[in-house]
């Protein structure tokens, strides 16, 4: 599944009510590292369609959501499970590093 764009209005349904592990990517057009990490997240989304959902939040359009989660650096990857923020990563990082951070949150395969 390809990443989904979320707004303040759809965040509850797309993220908090989701039945999979959700990685929320807080990003902006003008943020270089955000552009670097975007294709990495696309890959994670397509390779883990059963277990991981990627949701994008554009901080230019959704400032309130960024404030709700006290986000002051992007890219900011918030990992949500069962409606709760369980892990956070700041800055662009390679796929392997992201997967290492969330491995123990995924269902055993």
């Amino acid at each position, binding site marked *: 599944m390809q990443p989904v764009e979320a707004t303040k209005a759809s965040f509850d349904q797309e993220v908090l009510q989701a039945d999979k592990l959700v990685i929320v990517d807080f990003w*902006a057009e*003008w*943020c*270089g*590292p*955000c552009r*670097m*990490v975007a294709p*990495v997240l696309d890959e994670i989304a397509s390779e883990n369609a059963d277990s991981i959902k990627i949701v994008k939040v554009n*901080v230019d359009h959704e400032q309130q959501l*960024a404030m709700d989660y*006290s*986000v*002051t*650096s*992007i*890219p*900011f990857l918030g990992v949500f499970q069962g409606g709760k923020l369980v892990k*956070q990563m*700041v*800055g*662009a*990082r*390679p*796929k*392997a590093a992201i997967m290492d951070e969330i491995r123990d949150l995924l269902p055993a395969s």
Partner: protein
Amino acid sequence: MREVIIIGSGPAGYTAAIYAARAALNPLMIASSVEPGGELMKTTEVENYPGFPNGLMGPDLMASFQEQAERFGTEIMFEDVTEVDLTGDIKIVKTGNGETYEAKTVILSTGAAYRELGVPREKELSGHGVSWCATCDGFFFREKVIAVIGGGDSAMEEANFLTKFASKVYVIHRRDSLKASEIMQKRSFDNEKIEFIWNSAITELKGSPKLDGVVLEDTVTGEKRDLAIEGLFVAIGSDPRVDLIENQVEISKERFIKVDGRTSKTSLPGVFAAGDVIDPTYRQAITAAGSGCVAALDAEHYLSSK
């Protein structure tokens, strides 16, 4: 088997690539998956790179480097090196996507990584007030009071850039004078939104879930005081990235790769190093580029004399 693999994609790596490609060595550059372009990708205005009299943005400069390297046939892989074996005649380089590459020579231009403050709760508050990238995060601090810690050119660059957003920017520095260039010092002193706090170090970060202040310690008297800020930008320098190779090539006490005199030759034949990873002194884009050129010429000479 490749003639040359270049690890890293800052000014040193790209310049090595341009020279190696023009020498028909078909270089492979392993540029990193998420940090290609190196430190300049996080820089705003670059005013001291010759050839650009009006200055330009760091990411634009790096895009030009890349274009020039590719024009002459450099192959660029946006992957991360996970393991190397440089000790033999054939150099082996493994990447994060599980590939293994072999080459007769390797140029190490892995640069330097931003230094952390080393105070408690730094990790917890990073992304919640503590930041390393003014261009990425300035936006979040509109009309807020924030601070930059550091005394070099990059600290001044960030402080001036951040005044476009913040209502006030403190510059916290552990000494009573700056290492930054005269022009950047003057610009910072003249900027009404910037206030300097001298002889001070940060010992504590306060606030939850967001930063709302720091505890400063006077580096002369030891006296402590609180400073209310909502953002802290860390620009206290960087450390050479040598983790991959430190058990194979010789490293100095300060953890830079050792090279032979004015050359780029490391302690291993066929392994060359360039840029910030060998430079404890100058660490400029232009010196890195110059040293990347040296590495490519050294590699070319090594290959032709084999």
